[in-house]
């Protein structure tokens, strides 16, 4: 309104004349003071830059003279070009969200929607605000309490003074809320399209990458053919096993050249209706990853993930209904959180029901879900019917649900899952502190075929290893599981407490209790969890130190009949463990902050072994544009062994610097060194002590707010201890010795169009020396050429990555 008034007053004040910013080509040609050549140049320039900021810009155009300028000053107008509908700050946040990956996927899309159509802050409750990025339970409850006691706010900045709301929480909240009132009668149509081509995830050289699986599969096949496994004395049909492994091997080879695509369309109408579709194909997608198994069309083999949803907002007691794919994350994620990823040591989680167009597959829910609100009762109800992948026994029966990147035909979609349940919360904010609530929930999972976790189908018979994996023995069997949950939470001033407990129908329990205290300078979070060995809920994503199958036989594919079954290690479910976790952040002064310090002591309930992990990070900021961070990590972990338990002690030192040396440049450097000390064991040989480290640099130059180029380079060397590094859009695995560099260009062309290009080259070297062997029957040789011996060579793997992302909005 204010802008309109200003514009109207400006228009009234200026003399009549042609606005050349909005003039057509013909109108410019008809101007007496311009030649036709000048009109062409001026028209093209205005089209290119979106409009003149002032008339004096024309003096830089070819063919324009001071006389031309003077004539234009007297005879035309330069009215301001229309301002973008989306502020640059919102585009910055979108840019940051575009880099997010993993479990936040679903929420990221929801947040993107909120950036364009913010949440009406005067109507929100604590559960609405808990769905926002890095807004804590206390932050959410504080705002809810302020609104209930003092009434609506006239501007979002009024929330800044809310008691017990941290500035950090306010800052993360302000872009997603506004004081607008929703207009449910509106049918304004809006939407977006995102295309991604991604060949950067196909770094096949890692142990659990494609080449690693190909290598393991080849070895297994050779081993069986050469009689290395004494299968004749067992019930395993060696011919059947080889046929399966050869089929999987062929699928792995075919997958080597498959790159990833993703198309995502989302649309909306007003504040009430939303819809979306995603079609995608994963990098290194296997034959079993067809969109619809068995359908013979080119499109079916081109895509391996299809998702869609339609959602309906706010009508009576119905807050939201989602039909199609949805994601649900409630309480502390012990009963229901259907992400495909379990984040280690994550105390922050988003709450709520959101449509799901993410890359998650194995835990995707497809059906319908509703969020209902009646008085003080908040309820969620959901149902789903979807195919699921599973490791299969040789007779074809499903052995165990698995979530793997590589999906052979033998594993993919072997059963269907029917899931339904609900969670209801009673809000006690009217007579207890706002945020207080209790809840009960239930979850029922039914499978079309009985799960039959049989060791005989996995363990290589008569090998030197004895099967010992209690975590596997606790995997569910049969065709049905039921879970009941209870939850409670409260907030008092700047303190909060939450508890959730779930009981499985086999009598096993899991529980987690979390308490926090926060202010602007200090926060402390403590969490106690206890997940029984027999407790196995595929939708459990609660706080955890380890995945269920970390440090088990499933990390050793050479000990499995089918090496691809090792992907069970990726199952995103917490390990049976009991532990106490403490985490704090403390800002000592403007210059010194302990950014994250935590201590986790936990017991692995599979073996009752004690473990400890500590990490401390301190930041020193001598002047505003320069920061130094020093991080130390220590982990002491016991692994069960038959005779003497082994022990590993890991230490890691990281020094990072961030600086803004010039106005439009950002520079960072990271140096890391780590070492692992293992219990002496003949199997480890000289590798009792392992180490590794890297040096990584990043530099980003911003040409303009719309265009920036980021370059990064890393050098690393390892001696048995591989390293993980955060790249700009994900985590990279560093092994051997090597170098890499990448360049990313980010370009916002307009409100409607954003582009990102990334190019990466990674060189990894594995020296292999001293291969001379005196025994002529035990030599290294080339593939298919046993007589050609190899005594010394260097293994050099070159990976290229190209990623292209295009976002269109309307």
């Amino acid at each position, binding site marked *: 309104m204010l802008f309109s008034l200003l514009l109207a007053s400006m228009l009234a004040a200026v003399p009549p004349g042609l606005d050349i910013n909005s003039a057509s*080509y013909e109108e410019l040609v008809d101007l007496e003071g311009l030649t036709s050549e000048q009109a*062409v140049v001026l028209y093209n*320039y205005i*089209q*290119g*830059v*979106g*409009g003149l900021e002032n008339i004096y810009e024309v003096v830089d155009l*070819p063919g324009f003279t001071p006389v031309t300028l003077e004539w234009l000053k007297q005879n035309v107008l330069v009215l301001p*070009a229309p301002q973008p509908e989306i502020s640059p700050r919102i585009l910055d946040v979108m840019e940051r969200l575009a880099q997010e990956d993993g479990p936040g996927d679903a929420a990221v899309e929801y947040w993107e929607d909120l950036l364009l159509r913010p949440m009406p802050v005067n109507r929100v409750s604590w559960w609405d605000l808990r769905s926002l990025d890095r807004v804590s339970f206390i932050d959410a409850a504080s705002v809810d309490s302020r609104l209930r006691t003092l009434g609506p706010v006239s501007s979002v900045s009024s929330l800044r003074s809310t008691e017990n709301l941290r500035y950090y929480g306010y800052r993360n909240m302000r872009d997603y809320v506004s004081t607008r009132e929703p207009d449910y009668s509106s049918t304004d149509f809006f939407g977006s399209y995102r295309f991604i*081509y991604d060949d950067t995830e196909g770094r096949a050289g890692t142990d659990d990458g494609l080449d690693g699986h190909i*290598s393991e599969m*080849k*070895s297994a096949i*050779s*081993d069986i053919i*050469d009689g*290395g496994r004494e299968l004749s004395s067992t019930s395993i049909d060696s011919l059947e096993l080889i046929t399966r492994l050869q089929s999987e091997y062929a699928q792995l*080879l075919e997958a*080597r*050249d*498959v*790159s990833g695509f993703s198309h995502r369309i989302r649309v909306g109408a007003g504040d009430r209706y939303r819809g979306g579709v995603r079609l995608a194909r994963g990098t290194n997608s296997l034959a079993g990853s067809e969109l619809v198994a068995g359908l013979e069309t*080119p499109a079916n083999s081109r895509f391996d993930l299809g998702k869609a949803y339609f959602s309906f907002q706010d009508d009576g007691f119905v807050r939201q209904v989602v039909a199609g794919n949805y994601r649900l994350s409630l309480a502390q994620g012990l009963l229901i959180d259907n992400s495909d990823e379990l984040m280690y040591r994550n105390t922050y989680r988003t709450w709520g029901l959101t449509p799901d167009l993410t890359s998650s597959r194995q835990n995707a829910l497809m059906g319908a879900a509703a969020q209902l609100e009646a008085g003080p009762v908040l309820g969620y109800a959901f149902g789903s019917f979807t195919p699921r992948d599973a490791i299969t026994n040789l007779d074809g029966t499903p052995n165990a649900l698995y979530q793997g990147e590589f999906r052979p035909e033998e594993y993919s979609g072997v059963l269907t899952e029917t899931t339904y349940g609900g969670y209801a919360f009673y809000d006690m904010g009217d007579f207890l502190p706002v945020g207080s609530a209790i809840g009960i929930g239930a979850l029922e999972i039914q499978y079309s075929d009985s799960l039959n976790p049989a060791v005989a189908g996995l363990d290589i018979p008569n090998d030197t290893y004895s099967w010992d994996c209690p975590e596997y023995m606790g995997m569910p069997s049969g065709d049905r599981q039921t879970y009941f949950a209870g939850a409670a939470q409260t907030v008092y001033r700047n303190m909060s407490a939450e508890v959730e407990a779930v009981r499985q129908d086999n009598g096993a329990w899991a529980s987690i209790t979390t308490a926090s205290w926060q202010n602007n300078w200090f926060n402390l979070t403590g969490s106690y969890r206890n997940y029984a060995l027999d407790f196995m809920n595929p939708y459990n994503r609660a706080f955890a130190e380890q995945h269920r199958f970390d440090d088990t036989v499933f990390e050793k594919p050479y000990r499995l009949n089918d090496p691809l079954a090792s992907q069970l290690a990726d199952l995103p479910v917490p390990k049976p463990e009991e532990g106490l976790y403490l985490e704090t952040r403390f800002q000592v002064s403007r210059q010194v902050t302990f950014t994250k310090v935590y201590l986790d002591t936990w017991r692995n309930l599979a073996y009752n072994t004690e473990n400890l992990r500590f990490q401390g990070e301190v930041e020193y900021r001598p002047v505003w544009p320069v920061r130094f961070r020093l991080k130390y990590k220590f982990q002491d972990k016991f692994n069960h062994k038959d005779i003497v338990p082994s022990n590993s002690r890991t230490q890691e030192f990281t020094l990072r610097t961030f600086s803004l040396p010039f106005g439009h440049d950002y520079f960072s450097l990271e140096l890391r060194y780590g070492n692992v000390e293992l219990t002496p064991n003949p199997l480890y040989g000289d590798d009792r002590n392992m180490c590794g480290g890297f040096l990584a640099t990043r530099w980003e130059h911003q*040409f*303009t707010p*719309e*265009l920036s180029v980021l370059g990064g380079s890393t050098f690393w060397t390892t001696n048995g201890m591989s390293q993980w590094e955060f790249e700009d859009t994900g985590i990279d695995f560093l092994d051997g010795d090597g170098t890499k560099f990448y360049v990313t*260009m980010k*370009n916002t*062309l*307009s409100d409607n*169009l954003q*582009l990102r*290009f990334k*190019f990466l080259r990674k060189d990894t070297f*594995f020296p*292999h020396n001293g*291969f001379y062997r005196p025994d002529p029957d*035990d*030599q*290294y*040789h*080339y593939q*298919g*050429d*046993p*007589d*050609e*011996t*190899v005594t010394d*060579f*260097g*293994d*050099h793997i*070159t990976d*290229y990555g*190209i990623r*292209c992302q*295009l976002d269109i909005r309307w």
Partner: protein
Amino acid sequence: MGITAGGMIILLALSGGLPEVMWLGDEGVLGSAGAAGMGNTVYADISPQAVLQNPAMASKLPEGFSVGITGTVALDIEKRTRRVYDSFGGVVGESEYSFNQNFHPLPGGAAISWKTGDLAFSAGWRAVSTFGYSYSRIMNDDNYVKVGEETLETSGILNDFGFSSAWRQGELFSIGAGGSFVTGTRSLEQRMQYVDPTASSYEIELDTEISGMVVRGSALVNLNRVSISGGVEQPVGWTTSEGSSEADISLPMVLRAGLRYLPGNRLMSLFVADFWWSGTQAVEVADADAGMKNSWGFGAGVENTLPGGTIGRAGFEYDSSPVASALDRMKFTTGLGWVLDDITVDAGVSFSPVRWDQYQADGLPTFTPGDSLVVESSRTAFTLGIEKTF
């Protein structure tokens, strides 16, 4: 790829796992160097060379005469590795087996256009496909004693002599038509020289003549800041000949589309994209089904005028192979441009990595029967172009 790619199908008999150049040829620079830096988006390019491909786009050329010329150098690196196994069949690692590096200066194209009012014409020559590839290796026995030497060299070029015309109907709509005569030769020379004089050394030389025509038509619609064009091209009368033997090649129609979007910002940004699809499943050589699948490709790129006036470009291209998905090709491109009065100088760089498996092929190049090799190759191409308007 498209039409000229199909022209090489007669060579499939030699193609058992050989580099793309052996049957499809490496696509040349069909448009300007600027387009080469933006994902090779020829169908969205406004240059004298590109309008030979998309005739209707000539209506957006500047008034008067325009001349454009491009040239390219390409660096091909090919690494072949063999896996090393222990006596139990376990993989120890990969050993580099042979390494070929070739540096090719290649012609690009040259064209002239003339636009007056609502009419525009263009004519020119383009090297639409090239066949530069060389390979050599020394063969050793089990004791690493040299037993022979093998070399393989291919060369050749496929020339496109084309013309086009366009007619503009107001600011909104333009149509165009054109055609090309395509002719060229691909030469192959393979030599196997054994140290042992009793072994049968041999040398093969093979020259293949290719000729044909292409008819093109396209339309262009200008919608405020967006220009959309679409068109078709139909190959006609394609033949290949080797000595006295001759074969007809039946090539399908290719559908193409291009898009230009001028968002209007202080970077004077330009977004371009193009797409093509061809029913190559219908390709026939001497009335026999060539066993190919339908193919398609797209490119996208962006251009920004940086502070100081230099133009920066980046883009991406993906082309599916009509032969095998393993030969699908992606390119990452970037480029710079400078405007000096009425002369435009553009430079583009493209990088394209590809990995494929070489299996036993009768002939070229040889290796131990039953063996299989993983071949990693990359092409880095530098393109330079100049345009001048009179």
